């Protein structure tokens, strides 16, 4: 069988099983079973599927995933996140589009604590969206920032998906986590600028409303009390990794314990909240890691069948410039992101992408950050962006899906702008890791 027939058959079968509505992990496992029979020597290959699957998650470098998710879950289940939002609310009082700006600022801080994108969006959507709509905010102005900041969560550490990308692609996890900081903060700043300018030009988008004036120390006290400790947790995680005191896994565990300690200090942690957080963590991590189990052998089958080598050789010999190849790679990610979840996208593309990254000599951190921006855009692009569904689940029935799509459009364009900026100025991604880690 020629490599392209094999590739077409493998991806065709995968697409069919996904289309049938099988859980993604099962779709991969099903294709693996057939692929193992054909390309990995029959029965020994089937046993290899089991061994690979278990080995893929018996992996210390993936252990930060549940720890990072746990940080976010604890913060949300204890209500400490809500107190932080109130603290921002006190400080940001006269800015046009105040609640939208709060969504961005609070979302950025939560991104720095929570490794779970969906949890961040669900929390902000559940808390802020009803308030915004009640205050007469344009639905697009209300929903857009909440979805957009959920996407930025992936760039600002800690991020479960970043850990997975580093582990699967063989890119330094610490380096990748640090490399996302500058583009993530820049994107947040762009979002705030956009909201303020839009609402200043057209105040009807976010009508100003009277609120109880809080002055003097009382205005700032909640910020010091409820936001500073969260920022401190972020600093603990980053400093522990950067200074070499702890591996990413250990930093993540420290971050989770610090989050528990902060919630205990606020007297917000009950046994129920802890159990709910652990259960939520098991669900999100389990979803991600079971797909890893399902898809691990897939890349091996692609390789054994000659598919990986065939496609990579074709691209290498295509005469495309390195920039052309990079653009095609990013375009494929953006298209896949509209239809396929982030973990599957990684497992499908990385077997092809990483040999090309090596061949063309792309900086892995630079490439990793652009890859993450594409993943982030995938969360926001119709028809199957995960955060669009999350917003659908928290938005009132009167909001149409079309409005949700329209709300997110400007932020997708900002994401594309940032992708172009990082492509043109690699220092946006590589400067901070060089400064902190010497990488």
């Amino acid at each position, binding site marked *: 069988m020629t490599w392209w027939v094999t590739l077409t058959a493998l991806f065709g079968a995968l697409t069919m*099983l*996904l*289309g*049938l*509505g*099988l*859980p*993604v*992990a*099962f779709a991969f*496992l*099903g294709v693996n*079973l057939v692929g193992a029979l054909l390309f990995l020597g029959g*029965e020994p290959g*089937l*046993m290899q*599927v*089991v*061994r690979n*699957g*278990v080995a893929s*998650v*018996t*992996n*210390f470098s*993936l*252990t930060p995933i*549940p*720890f990072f998710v*746990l940080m976010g879950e604890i913060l949300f289940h204890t209500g400490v996140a809500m107190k932080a939002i109130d603290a921002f609310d006190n400080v940001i009082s006269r800015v046009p589009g105040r609640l939208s700006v709060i969504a961005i600022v609070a979302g950025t801080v939560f991104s720095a604590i929570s490794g779970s994108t969906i949890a961040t969006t669900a929390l902000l959507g559940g808390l802020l969206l009803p308030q915004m709509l009640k205050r007469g905010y344009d639905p697009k102005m209300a929903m857009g920032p909440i979805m957009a900041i959920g996407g930025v969560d992936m760039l600002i550490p800690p991020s479960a998906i970043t850990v997975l990308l580093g582990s699967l692609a063989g890119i330094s996890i610490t380096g990748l986590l640090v490399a996302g900081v500058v583009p993530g903060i820049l994107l947040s700043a762009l979002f705030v600028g956009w909201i303020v300018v839009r609402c200043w030009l057209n105040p009807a988008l976010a009508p100003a409303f009277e609120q109880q004036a809080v002055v003097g120390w009382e205005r700032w006290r909640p910020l010091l009390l409820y936001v500073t400790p969260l920022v401190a947790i972020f600093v603990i995680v980053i400093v*522990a990794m950067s200074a070499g*005191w*702890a591996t990413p*896994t*250990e*930093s993540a*565990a*420290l971050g*989770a*314990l610090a989050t528990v300690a902060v919630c205990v200090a606020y007297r917000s942690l009950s046994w129920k909240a*802890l*159990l709910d957080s*652990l*259960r*939520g*963590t*098991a*669900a999100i*991590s*389990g*979803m991600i*890691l*079971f*797909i890893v*189990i399902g898809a691990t052998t897939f890349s091996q089958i692609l390789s054994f069948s000659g598919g990986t080598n065939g496609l990579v050789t074709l691209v290498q010999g295509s005469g495309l410039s390195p920039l052309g190849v990079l653009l095609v790679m990013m375009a494929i990610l953006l298209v896949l992101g509209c*239809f*396929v*979840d982030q*973990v*599957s996208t990684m497992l499908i593309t990385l077997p092809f992408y990483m040999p090309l990254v090596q061949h063309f000599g792309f900086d892995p951190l630079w490439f990793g950050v652009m890859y993450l921006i594409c993943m982030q855009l995938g969360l926001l692009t119709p028809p199957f962006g995960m955060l669009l569904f999350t917003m659908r689940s928290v938005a009132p029935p009167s909001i149409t899906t079309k409005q949700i799509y329209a709300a997110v459009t400007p932020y997708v364009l900002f994401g594309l702008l940032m992708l172009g900026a990082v492509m043109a100025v690699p220092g946006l991604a590589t400067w901070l890791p060089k400064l902190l880690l010497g990488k």
Partner: protein
Amino acid sequence: MKVGAWGRLMQVCGIAAGLVIGVMTVLVGYDVLARNLRLPSPGGIAEASEYGLALATLLAAPWLLWSEQHVRLDLLQMSLSPAAWRRLYRAAALVCLAISAVLAWYSVAVIVDLRQSGAVVMKAFTFPEWWVYVPAPLCFGLLGLEAARQVLRGPRVASS
């Protein structure tokens, strides 16, 4: 929504997975503090957390299938009538059942093979390698049973 004995077993799997993650968090966090503060620490925590991660993932998988939390791409379902969607759901569950059954079988085969070969893991801990794979047939067995339930009874409104 009322949850029967099977549902409770699935929920126990989910809670157990969460507790494993909780224990891992405490152990790994203590390990790094102990190392930097020169406190006593049991060895092998990094290796133990690797096995914990696999155990938590394999424990969570059947619960996630039961509670409809595994990621699916609902490409076709969104355009189908409810009756056609239920038929498609059962067909997908049947495929899941077949996949789980094959993997449960070959998980047992891996364990038997490793027992016969006497393979041993020699890292921080030394123990027979087949121990690592014990959760696999249990996971795929439970997944198969849940998939069979979905084939027979169709979709349930999820409640975890």
